[in-house]
């Protein structure tokens, strides 16, 4: 048992000692003595104050001390915790990646979950499941909207603090595909608040760092500046995208129909089916007006390259994804089956260092994104996940939330104690009345 406010316990003890002292000085009936001339003494109440070694009115004293003890105990806020030996766990299950990714997550979550664990589910909102069972994991259908891992971590830490009252140690187990969209700047800060262990279990996506490289397919010749720019883009996420620097083939079209994004970015800035401009001219800048795939997997960002570009063709009709500085379309995108075909008419000089500039790298990265309107997501790399959600907590920040929660008094016990104190006060009244009648 622990108390939230020991001061009240000390004050109660002092009051109890005071009550005992008062009972040592209680009104007492003086000893009787025969005196024939007693009639000449003033007629006064036959009680007087006198000190005594033994407290008087023991029943009344006991009830009064009980009242004080109960009130002080209620104000002190005792907390009774029956700790269970062993490890307590909070299972955080990510349900925000849609029905397609849910099956492996559900399977892994069921294998991880044990009876007695706390369960936190999050998609568009994070919430702790009360009295969870293994079936609670699939109580509702998963959604494709996510509020992010940060909110789920806050709920999980709150559940972990509750669980910490009953367990020796608590760890948080996060079962998620760890999409890059789920991790934000606050995730790492929130993780540092929790001093315990956070174990990450990836489900529904391969845990590696080569996802983008394997999925981004570039077909270009040697020394191609676009290839170089995309290679320098580094860890920028990419979807199932194929960049074609030459002419498209039937296999490309078939691949795109299955959900891929074909980026036709010919070397000569001319492609079969594209309309040539009446006269070649020069543009001095090009901008990706919005994200090629402005979905949650690729937040809307603009990328502008200021340089001298020669315009010879006009992209085919479609959704404009990039414009020249004068507003004419520089790249368009048309849907193709489950995927799309993106046409880029920006000619990149093979000489010079334009392709190596950060602006162009960013520009190329944006154009090499997944299809517009695609609801795909990209898994964060293991290194990112381990950096954002390290297994060990920060010792210095241990228990900032935990300490605040463990000092919370148990209002139920306090209410019962106060109720008992009131009952004892009524008993005290009755005992006092009885004692008064006895001494009168």
């Amino acid at each position: 048992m622990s108390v939230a406010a020991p001061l009240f316990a000390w004050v109660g003890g002092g009051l109890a000692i005071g009550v005992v002292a008062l009972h040592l000085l209680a009104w007492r009936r003086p000893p009787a003595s025969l005196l024939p001339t007693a009639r000449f003494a003033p007629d006064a109440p036959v009680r007087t104050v006198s000190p005594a070694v033994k407290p008087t009115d023991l029943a009344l004293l006991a009830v009064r001390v009980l009242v004080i003890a109960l009130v002080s105990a209620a104000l002190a806020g005792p907390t009774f915790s029956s700790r269970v030996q062993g490890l307590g766990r909070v299972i955080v299950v990510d349900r925000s990646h849609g029905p397609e990714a849910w099956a492996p997550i559900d399977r892994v979550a069921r294998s991880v979950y044990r009876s007695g664990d706390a369960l936190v589910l999050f998609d568009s909102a994070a919430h702790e499941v009360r009295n969870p069972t293994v079936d609670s994991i699939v109580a509702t259908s998963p959604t494709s909207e996510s509020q992010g891992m940060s909110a789920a971590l806050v709920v999980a830490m709150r559940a972990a603090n509750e669980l910490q009252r009953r367990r020796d140690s608590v760890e948080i187990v996060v079962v998620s595909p760890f999409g890059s969209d789920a991790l934000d700047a606050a995730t790492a800060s929130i993780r540092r608040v929790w001093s315990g262990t956070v174990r990450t279990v990836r489900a529904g996506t391969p845990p590696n760092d080569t996802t983008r490289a394997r999925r981004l397919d570039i077909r270009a010749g040697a020394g191609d500046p676009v290839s170089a720019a995309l290679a320098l883009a580094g860890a920028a996420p990419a979807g199932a995208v194929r960049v074609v620097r030459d002419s498209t083939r039937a296999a490309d079209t078939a691949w795109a129909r299955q959900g891929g994004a074909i980026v036709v970015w010919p070397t000569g800035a001319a492609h079969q089916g594209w309309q040539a401009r009446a006269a070649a001219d020069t543009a001095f800048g090009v901008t990706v007006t919005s994200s090629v795939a402005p979905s949650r997997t690729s937040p809307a960002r603009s990328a502008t390259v200021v340089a001298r570009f020669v315009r010879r063709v006009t992209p085919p009709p479609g959704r404009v994804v990039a414009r020249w500085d004068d507003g004419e379309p520089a790249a368009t995108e048309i849907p193709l089956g489950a995927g799309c075909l993106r046409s880029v008419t920006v000619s990149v000089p093979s000489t010079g260092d334009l392709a190596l500039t950060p602006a162009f790298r960013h520009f190329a990265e944006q154009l090499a994104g997944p299809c517009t309107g695609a609801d795909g997501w990209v898994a964060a790399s293991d290194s990112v996940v381990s950096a954002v959600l390290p297994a060990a907590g920060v010792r210095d920040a241990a228990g900032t939330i935990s300490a605040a929660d463990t000092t919370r008094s148990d209002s139920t016990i306090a209410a019962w104690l106060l109720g008992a104190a009131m009952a004892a006060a009524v008993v005290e009244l009755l005992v006092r009345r009885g004692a008064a009648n006895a001494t009168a």
Partner: protein
Amino acid sequence: MRERRTAREEERQQRGDDETSGPESRGSLLDAIRGVKWPALRPVAGALPGAHHSRLRGAAPELSEYRVYRQGDDPKRIDWRLLARSDRAYIRLAEDRSTVSTLLIVDATASMAFPQRSLGKWRAASDVAVGLAAVAHTSRDPVGLVIVSGDGMRQLPPRTRRGIVGEIARALDDVAPHGSLPLAPAMRGIRSRIRVAIVSDFLGDADDVRRRAGEVSAAGGEVHAIHIVADEELDPPARSVLAVDPEDASLARPLVAESRAAYLERFAAWRTELAASWRAEGLSYTVARVSEPASRVVRHVAGAALGTGRVVTPDVRREIR
């Protein structure tokens, strides 16, 4: 009965021990009052020759005056020598001395059994009564005794025989003060022209007793009040106690430091009023403290009759005030 007698014997034994160790034993008392006279306050009308002036004038040896012989006088009382010298017939007149019956009324109620351990008030009352009986008996006066206790009244009619003082002493020693009974009824059957000495603390029916004493005095009798007061009553212990009246257990009042002054004041006022009321009736009133030797009290009472020999001690003077 046997147990009661045993208790009394133990009490008497204890009392005897106290007497030997006390300020004045019974023997010392009798020695101290040897020769003390207790004359009547006024001429008595007794027929038997005694030590008190009689209202009658007869043929006593002590000449008082001559009176011319009148017809009807006894010729034997004619002074023949004076007749021979003066040729006139005179008869000799002498003041007769007679006895006066003395009745001692002793209060033996519970209030006299105080202090409980030494029974000082009862001892003082007994000694004073025995002393007065002895003094009266020395003058060949009949002496009687009435003891008023919770069991009723025990009487010894006035007698002049030898040993009456011892009988009185034994009767007093056989009594353990207890209970409550008024004193006034003990004076109902008293004939006039008797001397009555009331030894009591007057905490009972004091007004009735004084009223009855006034009637006896008006009828030619003589009443002496000996007020027995214990030192513990005059100066109670300083500790806080619940004072309980021994004759009325329902009368219990706290005697603490705060009420002590009021108690002393009220008790002194009552004593002053009591003394004034007795003296206003023309009665004799004497305060006898327990610590005061009984012989001195006896002398005070006897001195009150003489009007001259009374020794007024500072304590008594303070009490009278």
